């Protein structure tokens, strides 16, 4: 029986993109359903009643929520193609630890484009500290997963298409502070699974302009 895979997502969400990258890495066909978070669909509310958020993966009718949990699920079910988590338990633990850490970028990034003045400066500082630590974790490896693109690469790379928006509103340069990270993100973009899943940074920038207007940020 063919697998039925549906992804409830929002085009601009870097968390949703993580799932898209994972699905592409595994060469899986799925149905993408764009969600309107201002007017949540009955399906979204049924499949994620607890958080009512995207992304939600629906595999043969059963929902899985939370992007990193979804990516691990995908990796475990379709384990014989492009494994994302390393096989060594210690390296797996490190990948999970740092992947959870990347989640901090979501809220810090939001504060970057939602706030001004001192609040924004604090968010910017926190954001850059996170990126620097992650850059340190990358070291001289081509990918966080070592020679191969892996779980932590998936977790972080989707934020890279948001860098331009963060930089514009936060008035800083990721490349100036974390050149190795930017080089890594370009390396990842050479992969079809990444380039086909990440959105155009200019479009993301436009999305943020729209969100700021909607939320009344001057």
């Amino acid at each position, binding site marked *: 029986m063919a697998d039925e895979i549906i992804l409830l997502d929002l085009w601009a969400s870097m968390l949703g993109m993580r799932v898209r990258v994972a699905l592409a890495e595994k060469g899986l066909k799925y149905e993408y359903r764009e969600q309107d978070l201002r007017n949540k669909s009955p399906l979204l509310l049924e499949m994620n009643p*607890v958080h009512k958020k995207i992304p939600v993966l629906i*595999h043969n009718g*059963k929902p*899985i*929520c*939370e992007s990193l*949990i*979804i990516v*691990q*699920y995908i990796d*475990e*079910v379709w384990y014989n193609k492009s494994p994302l988590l390393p096989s060594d*338990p*210690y390296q*797996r*633990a*490190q990948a*999970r*630890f740092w992947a*959870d*850490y990347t989640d901090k970028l979501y809220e810090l990034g939001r504060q970057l484009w939602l706030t001004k003045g001192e609040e924004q400066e604090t968010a910017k500082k926190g954001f850059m500290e996170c990126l620097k*630590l992650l850059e340190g974790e990358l070291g001289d490896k081509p990918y966080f997963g070592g020679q191969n693109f892996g779980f932590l690469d998936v977790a972080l790379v989707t934020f890279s298409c948001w860098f331009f928006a963060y930089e514009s509103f936060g008035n800083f340069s990721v490349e100036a502070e974390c050149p190795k990270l930017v080089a890594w993100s370009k390396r990842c973009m050479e992969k079809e699974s990444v380039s086909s899943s990440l959105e155009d940074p200019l479009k993301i920038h436009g999305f943020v302009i729209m969100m700021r207007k909607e939320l009344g940020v001057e």
Partner: protein
Amino acid sequence: MAEEVKLFGSWASPYTSRVKVVLKLKGIEYENVEEDLSNKSPLLLKYNPIHKKVPVFLHHGKPIAESLIIIEYIDETWKHNPILPIDPYDRAMARFWAKFIDEKIQPAVWKTLLAGENEREAAIEEAHQLLKTLERELNGKKFFGGESLGFLDVAGNVVVWLEVSQEALGMNLLDKEKFPILHEWCQRVLDDDAFKQVMPPKEKLLAFTRARFEAFLGPK
């Protein structure tokens, strides 16, 4: 060999306790390093520079931080008596609910404790709703893990600790009339052999909880 396995933790930390329960369930010998959280050891700070918290697990000299990540590591390294479910979907559900406990329930419980007069009722209502949502997941089972303790029961220890220690805070958040199923589950967990051996004595926990909150909020 016990000397290869070390756990840096605190007797008063439910997160440390989670790891201890799993080590007990798997019969793994380890060296327990008790940390004074008001005066963290250089070794702890070296092994967990990012979060500087307990527990930290050391195996063959390599550190792992974050209780749930440590538990997954232990489960993958010592494969007998598996803690996580075998089926990927069940694993995803266990991880989802463990995250819900840590990221939703715990902060909500704290909020009720720290809330001012005006916000307390709303904070309590929110915590109650979250606890109800968790309770529904038991769905007639003895434990979240089924017939025996599993990953989510271990992660749920913070709820058990709340039930035990709430009287020290003069509150009844986990009211057994409101949450009969969760209350019964707590009793079953408290009765479990491994859990019993690891749980700090009730009076010690109550005294610690009381003192900690008086330091925070002033005497009640």
